[in-house]
């Protein structure tokens, strides 16, 4: 799901960089006030989990593969802005250390996965909490994966429309929406089930740990 360098036109990644910079600054201010020092080790572990999940490519029927992300889990446990920052950090490290995802496309990836994914996950969780905590957590995990996948598919698929050479050939990414939407969405719609289940299981484990710690 991470978009590599060279696949997104500057018309998209430059405004994304400006938007992301502003949003990161805002998120940092909010997070500084909100995150308790005692929560930092757990935040570190969930961020590390997200990093590990994004490294694992799970093969899916049809020959494609997809990565889980751990975004829903971060959003549910720590809120949208903390999750946004932590996922952005994971994406930065993956770009620098693993070469997964580009640097120019980092703002696009961060906004799609970190911000939109966290916001969608958190909104779904809040909406469904009254119905069932497990259903809410599952939905958070599911949307935390599939909403970013949709945004990445859209970002890639519009490239042939917005950036063309004089002869009409696409400058950055050649496949249009009719190709990218199914190619990106189908694996992630399937994998979202696993991500949802993982989110439920991890939340239950963290709840048990919290209960054990409480005096």
């Amino acid at each position: 799901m991470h978009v590599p360098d060279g696949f997104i036109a500057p018309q998209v990644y430059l405004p994304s960089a400006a938007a992301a910079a502003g949003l990161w600054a805002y998120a940092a201010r909010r997070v500084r006030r909100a995150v308790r020092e005692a929560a930092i080790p757990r935040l570190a572990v969930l961020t590390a989990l997200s990093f590990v999940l994004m490294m694992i490519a799970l093969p899916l029927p049809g020959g494609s593969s997809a990565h889980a992300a751990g975004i829903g889990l971060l959003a549910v446990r720590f809120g949208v802005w903390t999750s946004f920052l932590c996922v952005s950090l994971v994406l930065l490290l993956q770009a620098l250390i693993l070469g997964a995802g580009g640097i120019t496309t980092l703002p696009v990836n961060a906004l799609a996965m970190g911000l939109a994914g966290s916001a969608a996950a958190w909104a779904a969780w809040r909406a469904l909490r009254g119905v069932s905590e497990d259903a809410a957590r599952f939905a958070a995990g599911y949307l935390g994966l599939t909403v970013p996948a949709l945004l990445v598919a859209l970002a890639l698929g519009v490239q042939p429309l917005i950036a063309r050479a004089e002869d009409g050939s696409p400058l950055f990414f050649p496949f249009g929406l009719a190709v990218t939407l199914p190619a990106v969405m189908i694996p992630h719609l399937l994998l979202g089930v696993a991500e949802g289940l993982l989110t439920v299981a991890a939340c239950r484990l963290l709840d048990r740990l919290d209960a054990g710690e409480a005096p």
Partner: protein
Amino acid sequence: MRRLAFILALAMAPAAAIAHDLDHAVSRGEAVIVTLKYAGGEPFSYESYEVYAEGEDIPTQTGRTDAAGRIAFVPDREGAWRVRAFSEDGHGVDLVIEAGGAAEPVPAGAWNGLGPWSGLAAGLGVLFGLFGIISLFARRRGARPL
């Protein structure tokens, strides 16, 4: 005389037809080979690629990577050759390779970047280290004066 000219013209006609067939020559040489694989080791096979000479907008070569995920091209001039490959779900590369010089050191085909395990260790190390530093500052902010 005119009949002769006519017969000659008829005789030449197949020669003109033969000129439309293709000639070919086979030789061996050195190519730049770019091998692409996913992080898990699967080859990036049968995916579209484009190779551009330095400064060109129209690709010198296009095609699909082979079964082993390889792109091979023979640079006809020295310079920064650009290799782009893409899959439909957004995986791919956009590389610049210096090639085409006469006496060129051939790199030993080393893979870029760290392997998955080294990358995992490095990433986790940086993450936990960063959070450790952050918690140090958090602790300092919350410290009560003696």
